[in-house]
């Protein structure tokens, strides 16, 4: 009898141990990781995940070898299994396409980290998730791409970009400082322009109830849709009218929490006007550079440079333009469009006077002076070159046909004018002895 009781006791003990081990999915990880990754364990132990019994394996999986190889990173999809609403809002927002717009196919580049393929391809699939690529990323080394591009653009697939990896403390993501690592610097200084705006000063002096922070306007009520209320792209190009109308109504509703609707509408409309006036200045500069390219006076011309990663030996002045391996005038244009236009437009919408005017619009206007001056210098330079070496008449006709075609392609001359000019040039060609 006593022996039976001992046997039953042993069985009960074993069953209890097994049951405990199964239920507490994290315990066997914690034992080791308290010594190996103490910060991660500490953060997890203080997290809502711990309280909700979400253990290490629930997010990281059970394949330890894969984890050690760094191939079991916890992506947004893993979080989305439980946080479906936040995940869905996130992927539909501008943050949800951060990775796609910041990466590119590195397959044919030298000295690249092969793990980069995993950013666009699911494991085992040769079909990329998106065909959007970034030329500037493709000009970087793997290391530069990792630190300088991916640390921000990983926001698409990593909730830990804003949230901490193991802590669930929401104080972190409710603080506007959590936006600053990415939303700062010369190309989109939203952090700086908010801090020095009336909204930012109210926030820093009187607190969040008096001054709105990033989250109050761009993630109202905890929404993960950071695109809500926007009416221009990240490159300051206005949305199509239906999307812009919807965005404006959303933003006015957000502004309406504090301001009279008419006041908010006036302020945003003033921002629209500043944006439109500033884009016209950029457009004028773009036309000057396109004409220089037509006339083959850029120094160097696109066909005499390393090819653009996406467009080859073509002039690129759109969102994929580069700040390296271009001519000086294009470098001036890069600063104009990428830095100064962004400062003007975003400064206006963030109600920051200095960014809108001195750091933005004034710089744009001075950029235009520099670009016109450089254009004149390039044309003079070509004129001097022409005196030294006159191309033959056929080559001159060909150059003029090329300029005409480029002008026609960008709508600078009508098809009728184009045809008329071509006819004149062909007549000249037939007269050449």
């Amino acid at each position, binding site marked *: 009898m006593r022996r039976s009781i001992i046997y039953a006791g042993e069985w009960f003990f074993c069953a209890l141990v097994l049951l405990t081990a199964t239920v507490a999915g994290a315990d066997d990880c914690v034992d080791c990781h308290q010594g190996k990754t103490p910060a991660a364990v500490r953060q997890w132990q203080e997290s809502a995940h711990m309280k909700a019994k979400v253990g290490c394996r629930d997010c990281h999986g059970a394949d330890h070898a894969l984890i050690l190889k760094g191939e079991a990173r916890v992506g947004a999809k893993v979080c989305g299994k439980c946080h479906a609403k936040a995940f869905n809002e996130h992927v539909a927002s501008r943050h949800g396409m951060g990775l796609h717009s910041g990466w590119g196919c590195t*397959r*044919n580049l030298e000295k690249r980290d092969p793990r980069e393929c995993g950013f666009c391809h699911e494991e085992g699939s*040769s*079909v990329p998730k998106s065909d959007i690529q970034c030329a500037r990323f493709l000009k970087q080394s793997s290391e530069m791409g990792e630190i300088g591009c991916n640390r921000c653009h990983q926001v698409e697939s990593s909730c830990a970009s804003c949230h901490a990896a193991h802590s669930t403390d929401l104080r972190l993501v409710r603080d506007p400082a959590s936006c600053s690592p990415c939303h700062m610097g010369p190309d989109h200084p939203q952090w700086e322009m908010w801090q020095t705006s009336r909204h930012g000063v109210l926030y820093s002096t009187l607190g969040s109830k008096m001054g709105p922070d990033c989250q109050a306007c761009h993630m109202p009520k905890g929404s993960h849709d950071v695109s809500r209320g926007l009416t221009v792209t990240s490159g300051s190009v206005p949305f199509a009218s239906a999307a812009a109308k919807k965005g404006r109504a959303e933003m006015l509703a957000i502004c309406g929490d504090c301001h009279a609707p008419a006041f908010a509408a006036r302020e945003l409309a003033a921002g629209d006007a500043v944006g439109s006036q500033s884009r016209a200045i950029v457009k004028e500069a773009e036309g000057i550079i396109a004409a220089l390219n037509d006339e083959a006076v850029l120094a160097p011309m696109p066909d005499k440079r390393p090819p653009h990663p996406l467009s080859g030996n073509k002039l690129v002045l759109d969102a994929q333009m580069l700040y390296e391996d271009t001519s000086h005038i294009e470098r001036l244009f890069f600063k104009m469009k990428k830095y100064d236009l962004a400062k003007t437009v975003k400064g206006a919408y963030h109600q920051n006077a200095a960014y809108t005017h001195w750091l933005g619009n004034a710089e744009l206007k001075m950029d235009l002076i520099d670009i016109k001056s450089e254009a004149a210098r390039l044309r003079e330079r070509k004129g001097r070159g022409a005196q030294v070496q006159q191309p033959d008449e*056929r080559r001159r006709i*060909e150059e003029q*046909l*090329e300029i*005409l*075609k480029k002008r026609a392609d960008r709508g600078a001359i009508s098809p009728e004018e184009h*045809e008329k000019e*071509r*006819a004149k040039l*062909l007549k000249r*060609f*037939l007269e050449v002895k």
Partner: protein
Amino acid sequence: MVQSIKTGFVTGPWGRRTAALLFRASLLPACLMILLSGCARLPIAGPDANRLTSTFVTRLDAEPLFAAAPGGQKVAFSHEGVRVMPLPSGESRPLSTERPLALAWSPDGGKLAVALGSGTGSRIAVFDAAGVAVAETPAAGLVGTIFWTGPDVLLAVTMELEPHKFGTSCREVLLRWPLAGAPERTLLHETTLKPYTVRKLSSGLARVISPAISPLGDELLYGRIQDPPEFDAYLKVIVRNLASGAEREVVKTAIGDGSARFSADGEELMVSNGSGQIRRIAAWNESEKPAAPFSGRVLAVSPDGRHLLADGRLLDDGREAALFPPRTTGEFLDDGRLLVVADGALFLVSGIGAAVAEPVMPPEKLERLRTIRAWRAAGLISAEEYVKTKEKVMK
């Protein structure tokens, strides 16, 4: 005969030895004659078969290559190396013992360019009329085809393959080699081939893209291999103007099923892509019309443009004129005769009725025509403007 040796006058050891000698002396030449006579006849069928006469020229290697010199006076071919022979037949002399990858005669027939090599590298050598190598250059990758575009300028289309664990990086490259200088390299196309595709095409990969040069020597036709992950590899047939670099996709075709060749005037492309008919497609605009209601790769176009050789079928103005053995390849000569390769031998076929090639255009006129063709390809002038200007140039 063997039976008669065993049962006839053979009686003693001396007799047996004599019989053996007789056997060697009589049977072997007879066998050789049978063998040769079997190969020396080119089977020709079809409505015009009686009009055609064929002459055996020479035997070729298993992967036959040949090039006829302008004027059809001599032919270079692959047979245990490279050999040159006067036409219609005569004493051939060896030029190289290496197996060639491609052969091309200079426009005046005075020089022969030969691409040689294996594995991953090639070289191009130029031999003069005496068979002396007068110029040579290495070429990365395997040379598929070579062309002369002037008396001292060669073009070669090569394929550079770089194996990786996920597939093979494949670069189609155009080499322009002015004989006095170094070759200039232009990347035509780059893709990654699946391991399955590389295994399937194996050594013939470099010839898959089947380039051709326009009669004016200013435009190139070649295939860009496409190998999408979920589908079979196929070719995009591209026409490229060499002066402007402008390109146009003409047609898509399965590898091995289709081909394209320039028409005699270089304005159109004779295209087949397994659709059951040969089509005549304008090189630089969308217009097209049927040329013949037959499927089959177009392999040669006669100098007057009237005759086509398509996979063993000789077409006269779209009509089936004669049938050679299936997969017969060939090349029309300037004098209207046809050189064909069938069953491992080269034959000269005459009586086709093709007109001789037009005399060479004066250089000034040729240059003007090339100029407006480059402008048309680059979209600097319209197709109509090209036609009108060409008429005036050709007057």
